[in-house]
């Protein structure tokens, strides 16, 4: 299965500190590891939940579990870095979305979100924009929907495909 993975500089996993071999070597979950301890990655529709420094196309293998915001596999390997990833462009798209929300509902709260989203990095801009969406729509569902729209933006801008 082809999926995507956000990593820190040097292909280091942000939470576990695992160093992913850039030569395509497999990374495997420890034998008998409990559910949740496998190799984590995301589908295109889940990209925005995990925005990081570098994005990689990965191959997953073995038993694969699909969840709402991630996929987990027994093993995975890096295929290629997504060199088109441009955090500034993504953050700017989040700014534009937040400004649009604020013009729809011009409240002091929305003005705060606009002020904030303009000065933060891509992961924070993604979050702030989703919070603004939830504030405007008045539903929790809107938060996840905005993340989905952000993920679509990423897939389109970076010309990503799962096949």
């Amino acid at each position: 299965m082809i999926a995507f993975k956000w990593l820190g500089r040097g292909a280091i996993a942000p939470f576990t500190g695992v160093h992913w071999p850039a030569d395509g070597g497999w990374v495997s979950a420890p034998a008998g590891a409990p559910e949740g301890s496998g190799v984590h990655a995301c589908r295109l529709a889940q990209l925005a939940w995990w925005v990081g420094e570098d994005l990689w196309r990965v191959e997953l293998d073995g038993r694969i579990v699909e969840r709402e915001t991630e996929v987990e596999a027994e093993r995975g390997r890096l295929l290629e870095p997504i060199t088109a990833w441009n955090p500034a462009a993504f953050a700017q798209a989040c700014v534009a979305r937040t400004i649009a929300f604020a013009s729809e509902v011009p409240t002091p709260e929305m003005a705060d979100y606009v002020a904030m989203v303009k000065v933060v990095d891509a992961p924070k801009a993604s979050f702030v924009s989703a919070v603004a969406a939830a504030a405007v729509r008045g539903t929790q569902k809107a938060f996840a929907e905005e993340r989905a729209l952000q993920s679509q933006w990423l897939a389109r801008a970076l010309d990503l495909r799962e096949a």
Partner: protein
Amino acid sequence: MSSRVPDQPTCREIVELITDYLEGRLPLEARTRLEQHLVFCDWCRVYLEQIHQTIRVAGAVTEESLSPEKREELVRLFRDWKGKK
């Protein structure tokens, strides 16, 4: 950056969950929410790193490795702390 979104954890809640997270005791859904928070929250990432560092340093200290003076100082500090509680 604390979240105002209802089903997203706040920084205060993250701090309360960090020990369980590091010990692998968090249910999967809570762990996912915590990690999604860490994606955008510098403060909580720094806090997590501080806890990691504390574990690395404190984990390397054994009773035998302490000099008698240091051991006595630790006992005194602990007694003072207990006395203030």
